[in-house]
């Protein structure tokens, strides 16, 4: 088997147009700054932004942690579309690349936004944890069995990395500050599926049976298109909506 690691290098000069602002600095005004870099083989936005910071502007703010598409730190708007910067290859982009911070979240500086605070607030509101943790579960005993397919289906929804791309792509979230977003609705769907959580549809209705919840969704489905983990957001939201509508009527 004969394989190459990456394709031959290109010699493109890339132009990065980066939206910059430091909201804590009274003198700062939001503006676009342009940086030029020679493209390298296998270059991702993680590598490119690192190089810009190292060589061109040490003050440029952005967030990376795992740089492997796992932790969800580096969501940003890349040529108009929310996505994870670390696993975006420059070879898939035109020479002009526009980068902006995710909207809907508090801006920290430049490309860095406070998704952590938003997600914690959402988790507290929706109580995104298994409720019946009876403190007397005997840890010495064999665990309760679970249907293997059900475990897989829960994991499917559990794969959300809270990157915030779905919130940034959501029409409702931009208009309603308190909208829980696809991320929140997916979590409710996840816990509703999990027999270890004793909450009933009525309990979930209390949490998301309103316009900040599932009825706020305008089914534009920007969330579904941008989710870097390809979560089945469209079906989950539709399903939850039907279930909550039934609960509300019942």
């Amino acid at each position, binding site marked *: 088997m004969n394989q190459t690691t990456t394709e031959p290098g290109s010699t493109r000069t890339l132009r990065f147009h980066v939206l910059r602002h430091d909201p804590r600095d009274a003198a700062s005004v939001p503006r676009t700054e342009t940086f030029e870099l020679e493209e390298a083989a296998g270059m991702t936005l993680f590598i490119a932004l690192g190089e810009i910071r190292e060589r061109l502007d040490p003050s440029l703010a952005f967030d990376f942690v795992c740089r492997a598409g796992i932790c969800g730190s580096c969501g940003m708007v890349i040529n108009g579309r929310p996505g994870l910067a670390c696993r975006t290859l420059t070879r898939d982009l035109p020479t002009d690349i526009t980068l902006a911070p995710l909207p809907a979240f508090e801006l920290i500086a430049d490309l860095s936004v406070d998704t952590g605070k938003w997600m914690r607030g959402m988790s507290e509101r929706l109580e995104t944890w298994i409720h019946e943790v009876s403190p007397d579960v005997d840890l*010495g*005993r064999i665990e309760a069995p679970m249907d293997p397919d059900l475990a*897989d289906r829960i994991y499917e929804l559990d794969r959300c990395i809270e990157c915030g791309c779905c919130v940034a792509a959501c029409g409702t979230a931009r208009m309603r500050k308190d909208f829980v977003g696809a991320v929140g609705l997916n979590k409710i769907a996840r816990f509703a599926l999990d027999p270890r959580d004793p909450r009933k549809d009525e309990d979930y209705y209390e949490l998301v049976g309103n316009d900040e919840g599932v009825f706020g969704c305008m089914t534009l489905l920007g969330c579904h298109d941008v989710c870097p983990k390809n979560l089945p957001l469209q079906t989950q939201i539709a399903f939850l909506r039907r279930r909550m509508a039934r609960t509300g009527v019942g």
Partner: protein
Amino acid sequence: MKVVYTDVLVIGGGLAGLRVAIGARRRGHDVTVLSLVPPKRSHSAAAQGGMQASLGNVAKGQGDNEDVHFEDTVKGSDWGADQRVVRMFVDTAPKAVRELAAWGVPWSRVREGDRTVIINGQPVTLTERAEAHGLVAQRDFGGTKKWRTCYVSDGTGHAMLFAVGDQAIAHGVPVHERKEALALIHDGSRCYGAVVRDLVTGELVAYAARATCIATGGAGRVYRVTTNAVICEGIGSALALETGVATLGNMEAVQFHPTGIFPAGILVTEGCRGDGGLLRDANGHRFMPDYEPEKKELASRDVVSRRMEEHIRKGHGAKSRFGEHLWLDITLLGRKHIEHNLREVKEICQSFLGIDPAEQWIAVRPAQHYTMGGVRTDHTGQSTTLRGLFAAGEAACWDMHGFNRLGGNSVAETVVAGMLVGEFIADFCESPAGDLDIPTVLLREALRVERDRLDSLLQGGGTESADALKASMQQLMTDRVGIFRTGADLEAAVSGLQELLLRSRNIGLRHRKDGPNPELVTAYRTQKMLKVALCIASGALARTESRGAHFREDYPRRDDAGWLRRTLATWRDPADTLPTLAYEPLDVMTMELPPGWRGYGARDYVDHPDTARRAAEVQALRERAAQGDRHSVQAALMPYEHLLPAAFRGRNERIDERQA
């Protein structure tokens, strides 16, 4: 002067830190967690393959128990581990998996009946028992006798971290995000908390606490090629080191993972080989059986990584323009298996290599992966030299991994340590030793020192570039303190690092603002990282033997007579350019498993003078206790149960070991 008071300050919001926090919180203490990033973004999320715990649910795990897990872990450690801590760990690991199951982790489950798996390159049919249906499943990992690694597809760390993170929220544990501990506050014998910098505003705040726990994860980023996240910079170790009092244990024990994708170093999990994947060379030849006929691809990581590099040196590497590498072949597992059980691997291959691993081989080469060393503590997680300072997780050395950790034992360690150390910290807070009687002058002084340090970076007019120094350090470490080590290389590394350290005292910044200033962060972290790197390199230079992941080409034998001891590093004076090394002997006469051959790797080692005597003693004790069950035999050899917190004592039930 801004001061935050809390009972327990946990520095680090990964699996270890969060589980410590929940434990102390449940005991009624006020807990505050600090994290550089939102806690669910901690590097624990990146663990793919799984968590070891001897549940013995799957057919290939039958007969597994604490004893087998203990033996695998001690052999994996090349006898460097503290065997009592290993016992505490293997006993608690099943409880940890079961706790996480109750907290909602969607563990992959056993399906009764026949299934086909790949073992040693061949399809094999396994029959899972009906009684096991729906219980937590296990997969195979390197260096283990039984299939013991519990997993959630290949997103184990993610699922664990989210469950534990959500429990922390449920318990009302506050996490102060984007806050970085810069220094510990202490008086030379007791730790009182930390000076903390807000990474958004730049503000410095003193956090005063009865107990402080370092749970900051690994130090992989002192190397250029690493699987670790960009925030794994060993700052927690540096915090302890800079007290001048706390010690770091075995920093030279650094693990290199066989399968970092080449050249980016991003990890593909050991689960690939555990599930039947093979390593191949430039000619497509499967070479591991030539070197390790017994364990083949599934010898321990230190051994596989060395064999890979050896094979490349012999000229069998595949060439690319970034250098040489080998291939990981998982095509034989089939698309269905890959898309179901190795989906992160598939995503990573697609995003970073542009290949489909169900069709093509993955370019891999060993990369720095895990820091076995860390803040030296006793079995309760408390520093042996600085009271009130605790450590847990990858940042700690309580020492269950010795010189090589087994895959799957680390995320297991994080939650187990969290459970145990959380209780011990609560005990500490409830004892007179935990009383907080802190002189405010100490707080004020600690804040001033840090303020001055930052100001001198911002305003001092230094001329060195932090980025350049950091890059040189990383290159030196990867080139000279890697898988194969020699005295000459290590000497060059130590002197090179010393020079970088001196130069780091003259760092200047281009960007002088104190708010969200990434250049400032790189500057002060580089100064700290260099000290950690020096502990690794000088520890490695001094250790003239090979043990586990520490391999000296000029001293290729494990030398129990001379080196069955743990390295302890301190940084006595801020003006020093080298750590002070001391050694702590391991007592063969109290070992349950006296040193011997690991069952893979080199058979050639120098015995400790006590080994034969202890081996005979163990043999006699075993014979005497032979009437009893395995627990009484174990208790005769090395009692440990009394060391566990009361809340976590007790037997673990299994299908084959039912409880009444």
